[in-house]
């Protein structure tokens, strides 16, 4: 069974084609600058040369058609015909309360997805645009939506409700939804596999630390709490996002600086986090600054690490223990110094790190020593594979 996985943004898309018999990636690629005369398509079939071309691509239907042309290209492709694609799996950021699992797309699904645009205005409309475009080109191929929020649908009310008048939840469904669910699901399942244990017997804390960052408490394979909330702004300090802040401070800042809602929103989402403190948003630049003894980079690094540590502590409390901690995504996978610092501050958990293994990159690795009471893993995330698996399961 061949599954085509699509992740559509407003002006870009990424795709992967999987052969599900062995979960092998047959081809992958991306299209950038959709809507412009100089859109760029990059495509690579496994074992073949990477190809790239620049051309006008004004909308997603054309972008997807171009990807399919490359997949069926005599020289660069891997398929004889588009009919060899058995199903399309779409990443959809927000499933709201309507979708607690991946779902086969039909007219009703699309209506609900349209109504969810308000909850994720930057992402959901683009995801739905991708669904409609793919349907137009492949009307007979089943389409499946896989939601970033679905994995967190198991978070119980005492953890997903905010302590504001309950009518706000009833009227507008304002609650914790959480994000990066597909990633947290993948790395926690993979950690259980690497431990050779049943995930239902494990307490896992997964740290997805990319430009956006979230941390999840997973008990018995189910998310029971996560740091992102109603929006991806809550929780950890991020590249340009503030994470947690006293809401009272916002009213004060808005008054003092005469800011409107758009400005405070932009300040918290685009001007804060590492960027707000150190002036750079990339953790590699922060690490360089730390090496050069830059005061603000050191401050940003300390703040970043401390906030993760606080969440780990609170999730240990929430689950009454932890068996494994997993690091994934750009910063989680590629910043050994952050992991070293973090773990060194958690002696009460009885974790010890193998510093040689901690330096390894690009592979699944247990970085704790064999006698460590809590296992620590670095696992490169693979959200597309989860989307492909869910899609295959639904259409089978």
């Amino acid at each position, binding site marked *: 069974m061949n599954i085509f996985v699509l992740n559509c943004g407003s002006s870009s898309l990424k795709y992967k084609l999987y052969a599900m018999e062995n979960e092998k990636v047959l081809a992958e690629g991306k299209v950038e600058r959709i809507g412009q005369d100089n859109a760029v398509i990059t495509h690579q079939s496994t074992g073949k040369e990477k190809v790239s071309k620049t051309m006008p691509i004004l909308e997603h239907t054309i972008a997807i058609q171009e990807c399919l042309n490359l997949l069926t290209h005599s020289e660069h492709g891997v398929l004889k015909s588009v009919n060899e694609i058995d199903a399309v799996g779409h990443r959809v950021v927000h499933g709201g309360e309507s979708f607690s699992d991946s779902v086969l797309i039909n007219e009703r699904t699309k209506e609900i997805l349209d109504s969810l645009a308000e909850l994720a205005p930057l992402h959901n409309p683009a995801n739905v645009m991708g669904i409609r475009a793919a349907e137009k080109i492949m009307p007979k191929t089943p389409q499946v939506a896989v939601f970033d929020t679905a994995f967190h649908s198991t978070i119980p009310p005492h953890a997903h409700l905010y302590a504001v008048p309950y009518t706000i939840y009833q009227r507008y469904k304002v609650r914790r939804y959480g994000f990066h669910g597909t990633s947290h699901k993948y790395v926690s399942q993979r950690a259980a596999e690497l431990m050779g244990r049943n995930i239902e017997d494990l307490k896992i804390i997964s740290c997805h630390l990319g430009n956006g960052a979230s941390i999840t408490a997973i008990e018995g394979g189910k998310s029971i709490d996560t740091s992102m909330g109603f929006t991806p702004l809550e929780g950890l300090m991020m590249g340009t996002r503030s994470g947690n802040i006293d809401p009272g401070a916002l009213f004060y800042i808005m008054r003092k600086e*005469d800011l409107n809602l*758009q400005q405070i929103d*932009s300040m918290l989402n685009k*001007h804060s986090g590492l960027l707000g403190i150190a002036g750079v948003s990339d953790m590699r630049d922060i690490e360089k600054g730390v090496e050069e003894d830059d005061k603000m980079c050191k401050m940003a690094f300390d703040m970043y690490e401390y906030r993760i540590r606080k969440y780990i502590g609170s999730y240990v409390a929430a689950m009454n223990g932890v068996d494994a901690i997993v690091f994934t995504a750009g910063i989680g996978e590629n910043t050994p110094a952050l992991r070293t610092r973090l773990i060194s501050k958690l002696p009460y958990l009885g974790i010890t790190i193998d510093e040689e293994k901690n330096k390894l990159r690009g592979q699944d690795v247990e970085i704790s020593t064999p006698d460590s009471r809590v296992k620590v893993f670095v696992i490169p995330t693979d959200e597309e594979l989860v989307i492909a698996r869910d899609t295959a399961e639904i259409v089978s």
Partner: protein
Amino acid sequence: MDIRRVAVLGAGRLGRGIAENAASKGYDVILFSHGAGGKEALARIEKSLDRKLAKWGITDAEKRLILNRIEYTQDLRELSKADLLVEATLDHLDVKYELLRTADQLCRRDVYFLSATSTLKVSDLAKEINRSDMLVGLHFIPPVPDVAVAELVRGVRTSDEAVEVAKAFAARLGKQVVEIEESQGLVNPRALVAMINEAAYLLDEGVCEAKDAELIFRESWGMKQGPLEMADRLGLDLVLNWMEQLQMVFGPRYAPCPLLRRYVRQGRLGVKSRLGFLAYTEDDAVVTEDEGDKED
């Protein structure tokens, strides 16, 4: 038709605002102006974006992207590249007619025209062009990027398709569109100039100082700016021009306050001359001292 490049005629406050708003929503913009000072248009748009940057409303990368999408020109032939035309020049009948006739010749036949006129009738403007069914009145309210409403007017011959194009464009610019009957002065300009005129009378009669009138207006009705600051930002010459146009249509109730005429005669035009009802800094902020009240 897929609209990607928008031509904006007129690089005054309204034209610049429309250009900035359209560019920030992803349109490529050709900003045209004949007038002296038009060349400063890009610098003034940059200044407007810098103010947003200073308030964290945009990022530096977004600022550069927006500016890169706007191309300033004094060459009308550039209009041939446009997919949509927005006319936002001063409401001088002859100038506007001439410009619209030229644009009608230069633009592709499938290009719709929007006019941001405040005091002229769309039906009258439409008589000057061949594509009279493709002209819609769409009045944006300055500061255009920040005001989330626009007034839409059909001329006698305006087609439903043209109205749909105008609505879609305004919606992408983040505006709620309110369709009103064709009437010179629309809703916002008519009400605004009446309020400005009354505020000017308060000063002229020595009832209060400008800053005090502003405070009362702002706090009473939850306004960001009172009518005097609004007038200064529009330009007192423009306000006077609107009033004179409306006076011709509606009679003496739009007769301009003598103080307004006096200020315009003195070249005291508002923000652009740093002094109007209030005084302004180089960054277009209101000077907090009392100089703005004192006549030279």
